[in-house]
């Protein structure tokens, strides 16, 4: 390539870039009567299933708000619109797209990506440019200990995922006339940031009750086999078995618990729904306890979608092919509601005023209550524990929200 040509190319790019930057902020955040919110989410790659659930949730939130008249700021009604990019499930790409949304497209309001890893890549950038982000899909505790000021999350953080199973085990021990400190716990967690957060929460609660940990295995990411760990479980007969390892962990655990005929009175596993273990392994999954951020049977209620059950119905009517509404979609819709609420309370598009309004959020929604701690995480909504009872997921804890009694000890037909 000649020097001359190189110079021309550089010039062309430079002019184009300058043009974009100049044109961007002037009207990209609010175009006419439309507020544009940016989001880089996983439409392809390993997070694509949940990425698409989340974007469906975002879209439904936007649709509902626009149908109800839109967002009122400064006496004028605005519609909401989302500008999406596909981050291909790679955090590096999320970070690049965050820069692009903010620098090139002039976006001033962000909805989070899917997964803790990609949210971790995005948060430093929104923080750098002081652009508020409301996220619904990054649960990792470490996101909220960095002192980020512009990050707000509607979901419960990861250390709460299985902690309630410990309290439940203590309750059951008391019922059986034993002390909670007699409870013996076996733990198997994947060696990744999310599951280790879950583990930290479990250990905190185990210490609180003075329970005994008999197995504490950390499964490597690329381990497709848990039989050694489960053989140990079989030998030691703990009172509670807790497992966290995304969909792969849930599917592997369910399959091998069945194959090794593991008989433990209480088993709690994350990602039961995502791994579709009931459909795959049927009755062998009976009485598993599965934590969830949200369930359509909960009695939460809010202004925009009505009750959790009404949201469930609307979602199924809007999108084909959903037999159950994933909580990933529900919390994404809730994040859009948080933005609307903040716009109206701030009554401005100024990012500092919006940040202030977001930090003062106090809402009741179909997804649960939303109130942010100084770190940005939602402290008003608990994780709920559901039990697989005859193939159905029924809420059994915490008792305030429980619709069914917990089956204890666990019974599996044919065992």
């Amino acid at each position, binding site marked *: 390539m000649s020097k001359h040509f190189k110079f021309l190319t550089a010039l062309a790019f430079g002019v184009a870039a300058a043009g974009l930057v100049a044109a961007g902020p002037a009207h990209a955040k609010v175009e006419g009567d439309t507020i544009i919110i940016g989001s880089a989410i996983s439409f392809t*790659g390993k997070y*694509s299933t949940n990425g698409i659930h989340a974007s469906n949730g975002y879209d439904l939130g936007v649709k509902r708000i626009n149908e109800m008249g839109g967002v009122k700021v400064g006496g004028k009604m605005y519609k909401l619109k989302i500008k999406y990019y596909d981050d291909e499930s790679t955090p590096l790409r999320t970070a690049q797209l965050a820069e692009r949304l903010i620098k090139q497209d002039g976006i001033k309001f962000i909805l989070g990506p899917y997964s803790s890893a990609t949210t971790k890549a995005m948060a430093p950038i929104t923080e750098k440019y002081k652009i508020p982000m409301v996220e619904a899909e990054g649960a990792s505790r470490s996101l909220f200990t960095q002192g980020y000021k512009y990050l707000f999350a509607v979901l419960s953080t990861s250390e709460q995922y299985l902690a309630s199973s410990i309290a439940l085990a203590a309750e059951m021990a008391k019922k059986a006339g034993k002390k909670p400190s007699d409870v013996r716990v076996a733990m198997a967690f994947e060696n990744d940031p999310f599951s280790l957060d879950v583990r930290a929460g479990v250990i905190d609660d185990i210490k609180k009750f003075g329970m005994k940990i008999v197995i504490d*295995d950390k499964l*490597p990411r690329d381990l497709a086999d848990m039989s*050694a760990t489960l053989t140990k479980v*079989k030998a030691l007969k703990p009172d509670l078995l807790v497992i966290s390892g995304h969909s792969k962990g849930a*599917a592997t655990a369910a399959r091998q618990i069945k194959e090794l005929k593991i008989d433990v009175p209480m088993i709690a596993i994350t990602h039961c729904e*995502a791994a*579709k273990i009931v459909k795959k392994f049927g009755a062998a999954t009976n009485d598993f306890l599965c934590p969830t951020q949200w369930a359509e049977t909960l009695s939460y209620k809010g202004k925009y979608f009505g009750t959790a059950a009404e949201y469930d119905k609307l979602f199924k009517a809007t999108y084909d092919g959903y037999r159950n509404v994933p909580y990933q979609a529900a919390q994404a819709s809730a994040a859009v509601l948080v933005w609307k609420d903040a716009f109206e309370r701030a009554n401005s598009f100024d990012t500092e005023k919006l940040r202030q309004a977001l930090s003062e959020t106090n809402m009741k929604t179909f997804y649960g209550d939303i109130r942010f701690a100084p770190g940005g995480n939602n402290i008003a909504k608990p994780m709920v524990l559901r039990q697989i009872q005859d193939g159905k997921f029924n809420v059994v804890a915490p008792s305030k929200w429980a619709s069914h009694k917990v089956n204890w000890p666990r019974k599996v037909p044919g065992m």
Partner: protein
Amino acid sequence: MLDNIALLGIAPLLNVQLLLDGLFIGAIFVLAAYGLALVWGVMNVKNLAQGDFVMMGGYIAFVMTKLGIHPIFGLPVAIVFMFGFGWVVYRVIIYRVVGKDLFTSLLATFGMAIVIQQLLNLIFSPDVMVAESGFAIRSYLGGMVTVADIKLISFLLAGVLATLVITFMKYSRMGQAIRATAQDPRAARVMGIDTERVYAFTFALNAAICGAAGVLISMIWVLQPFFGMTYSIRAFVIVTAAGLGNLPGVIIAGLGLGAVEQFAGFILGAELQQFTVVGLLVAILVWRQVQMSRHRQAVR
């Protein structure tokens, strides 16, 4: 750690469970490793897409269940399909890298692995899938040892497949041609062997074996478009531990590492399960190096 060893002493039947599980796992790894050893030995191509071939086989079994056919019948389908796939891949890509340096074949097959992963991801989504055999799970020795029939069947099938391949390599014309080409491609060509065809056949055979392993895996573990890497790494570890060109060694190494892995997971915890396997590989390599240097001194 010590209490875990003590546990094995108190309940010796646990050893049986661990050993059986280890052998069952090992047998399937042996298949993938055997294919790799063939391709590596004959064509000097290090196939990083090995595990992805395995995943493809698994998804074939998964598709069978969707069609209402028992996944075990995926075995012949996967073998035929993957043989054809391997042949095409050889004709399109691999023939260009045979005889090139190490990095060319690594890069080409690594690229292939990424393409296969993404295609599987597009077709089947990144969700975790399984194929259920529905076979019984039997308890032995007072319930202390459980064996899922599917694991036993997989073990036997893996054995049959390995025997077939070994017999084929020893006695058939093509098998002999493959071995001759592995020893000296130039001499083989001089003797009238169509080495191009031998290479294509070897690569296709490898893909077919991987496909068979995948079918078994779909009924024992889980499928996901990006899990192939695990099996690629395993295959490399086994072939390296066995020593190149040592096909019976591959079987022993595969079964042995499977068993070691189970015991390591039990005694040291799951976090050190794979560490032990790879650590053992390093130990074997060091030991072999020491042996060889001694041998060299003796010759001098």
